[in-house]
């Protein structure tokens, strides 16, 4: 990718990331997050991580964000109105984040970060090379991941279900008032 495209995509990613935390409507935050994820996915592809870039679009921007969308829709969240909260918290929060960014920048700047540049081998970032690594060096981690996903499925169903015999607290509250 030409350098100006990197600059453009980087600016787009930062602006849409700011949009996530600035928008007052959760749906708008979510759309900004999807824009950030897509931009980062294109940056992945530009960095020769083609498979991971496409996985990012399919899994992250596709599946996980739809899950968020369903929850916003299910909870019927509206634009936040009323007082915006603690101004001091916002001020010091932004200050802390700016300090963190500066600190990270100095830690990750080249004099400290010694990276020996190596030429990428043939087929770098292809599905075959990713799968080859995944099913040899990382086989145990891969299998453990399946247990993690099973635990997540069981856990989320257990959390979201209504216990038998207990009334819906919202219905009970409505009946009482």
């Amino acid at each position: 990718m030409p350098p100006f495209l990197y600059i453009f995509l980087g600016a787009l990613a930062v602006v849409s990331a700011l949009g996530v935390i600035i928008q007052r409507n959760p749906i708008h935050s979510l759309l900004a997050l999807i824009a950030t994820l897509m931009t980062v996915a294109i940056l992945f592809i530009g960095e020769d991580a083609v498979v991971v870039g496409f996985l990012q679009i399919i899994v992250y921007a596709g599946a996980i964000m739809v899950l968020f969308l369903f929850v916003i829709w299910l909870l019927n969240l509206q634009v936040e109105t009323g007082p915006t909260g603690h101004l001091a918290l916002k001020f010091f929060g932004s200050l802390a984040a700016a300090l963190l960014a500066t600190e990270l920048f100095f830690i990750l700047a080249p004099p400290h970060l010694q990276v020996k540049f190596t030429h990428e081998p043939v087929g770098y970032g292809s599905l075959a090379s990713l799968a080859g690594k995944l099913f040899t060096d990382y086989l145990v981690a891969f299998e453990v991941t399946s247990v993690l996903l099973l635990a997540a499925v069981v856990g989320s169903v257990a959390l979201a279900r209504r216990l038998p015999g207990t009334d819906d607290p919202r219905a009970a509250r409505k009946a009482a008032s």
Partner: protein
Amino acid sequence: MIPLTYMMSLSAVIFAIGVAGVIIRRNILVMFMSIELMLNAVNLAFIAIGSRLGSMDGQVIVFFVMTVAAAEAAVGLGIIISIFRNRETVHADDLTLMRW
């Protein structure tokens, strides 16, 4: 190829925006989105360094981070729905039951 410093700065800035979102916003759902933002910033750093080292390890780790993010999103949103059903709020300041 673009210098590594550029990619790392971009990653640092997105991570800091995510941290700011968790601190500033009081809507649990938006705080959750900010966490996803931080995960993505770290993924970007992994990919950038991996491609310069010519190693696939970074990409495999990004793959695992995505899996963990999916599991985390499923469980976290389950918790948010459960909280909303009981308390009818997604505002973090309203959840003070366990506060002294």
